[in-house]
């Protein structure tokens, strides 16, 4: 019995049944909440979570919220609206540019970007990227890419202070969204659904008390490639399933692969599952079609990120 991509296959019907029963029990008996709020971005994860919530609680007890801001991809809003309509969920739009300007989020970020690229200004876009994992094991060093108004890309390694400030200011986005979701959840006595998948949840690809701030995370145990299987079963529209996952954070279009995961999901998920199941490195390498050294480096990268994620997932510490 050899290790292959088949190992990532799930029984979507059984998984859906298991997840929705668990959601119903915990949101009702544990939390004493009477429905659920889901922030929907037009991406695959939040779409699957909305569909699961509707199955768990009934369409009239689920509120989908789209939260566009001035740097959002403009087609996301239509995708979110159509999705809510398809599943019969309640739907509202909350414009987030106001709160973000109130926090001076854009200004604080661009101040740091300008320290690295003094020419940065109106019409420019920016994003932070990590280089892909290769045969050489390396620490995670972030790069800043700007795109000039005429479409030219420039990239530099980020000094620590500017890196931290750009990330800190960008985090206003996720924390403001959490704040808005909880406003509606608190108002309706609903729970907030966290839409992170296993890759995001365990490797720490979320903002503490931002998108990480939720009551229940129905797909946090599923690899991204498994979320796609669930999406197909649940009838998520193809135009959502075909989109490249982005960070939804930076003004320049930025894929999750270039910002954080550093390898394609089909490879990363397989290498990670192999690690969990203690499959020999060579066998994983063969199944994924990469070298043994790359497998080792990807696994090291995942382990390092999981260590960092501990802080992000930790409850506030206190003495007894």
């Amino acid at each position, binding site marked *: 019995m050899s290790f292959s991509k088949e190992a990532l296959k799930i029984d979507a019907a059984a998984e859906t049944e298991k997840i929705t029963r668990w959601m*119903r029990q915990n949101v009702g008996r544990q939390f004493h909440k009477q429905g659920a709020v889901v922030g929907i971005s037009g991406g695959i994860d939040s779409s699957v979570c909305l569909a699961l919530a509707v199955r768990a609680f009934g369409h009239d*007890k689920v509120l989908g919220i789209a939260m566009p801001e001035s740097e959002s991809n403009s087609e996301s809003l239509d995708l979110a609206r159509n999705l809510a309509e398809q599943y019969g969920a309640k739907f509202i739009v909350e414009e987030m540019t106001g709160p973000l300007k109130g926090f001076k989020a854009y200004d604080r970020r661009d101040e740091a970007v300008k320290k690295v690229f003094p020419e940065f200004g109106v019409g420019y876009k920016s994003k932070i990227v990590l280089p892909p994992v290769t045969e050489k094991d390396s620490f995670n060093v972030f790069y800043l890419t700007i795109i000039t108004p005429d479409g030219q890309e420039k990239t530099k390694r980020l000094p620590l202070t500017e890196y931290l400030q750009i990330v800190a200011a960008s985090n206003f986005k996720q924390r403001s969204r959490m704040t808005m979701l909880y406003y509606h959840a608190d108002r309706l*006595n609903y729970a907030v659904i966290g839409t992170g998948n296993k890759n995001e949840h365990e490797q720490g690809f979320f903002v503490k008390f931002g998108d990480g701030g939720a009551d229940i995370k129905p797909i946090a145990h599923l690899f991204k490639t498994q979320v796609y299987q669930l999406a197909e079963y649940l009838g998520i529209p193809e135009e959502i399933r075909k989109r490249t996952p982005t960070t939804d954070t930076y003004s320049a279009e930025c894929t999750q692969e270039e910002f954080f995961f550093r390898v394609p999901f089909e490879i990363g998920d397989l290498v990670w599952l192999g690690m969990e199941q203690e499959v020999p490195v060579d066998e994983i390498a063969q199944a994924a079609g990469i070298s043994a050294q790359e497998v080792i480096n990807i696994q090291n990268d995942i382990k390092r990120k999981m260590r960092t994620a501990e802080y992000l997932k930790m409850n506030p510490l206190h003495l007894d």
Partner: protein
Amino acid sequence: MESIEQKIRNYIVENFLFGDETVLFNNDDSLSENGIIDSTGILGLVNFLENEYQISIKNEEIVPENLDSINKIVRFLKTKFESMTIAS
């Protein structure tokens, strides 16, 4: 016609248990101590009773002895109905 007991039970199952009828509790069980309703739920229950039965529940009546089990609620409603009959 639906009994008062049944109506209240339906409200609770529908609103606090997402219609899950496998959660068993009998008409004398404490709703708060069995984790079926929390303090916000009690306020919702008060709203429901006021609207459904056209009664006005006083502040000092929102106490466990009137509202913390289906049977207590039924007894409480009956005293409310009686006082209304006398008053009218």
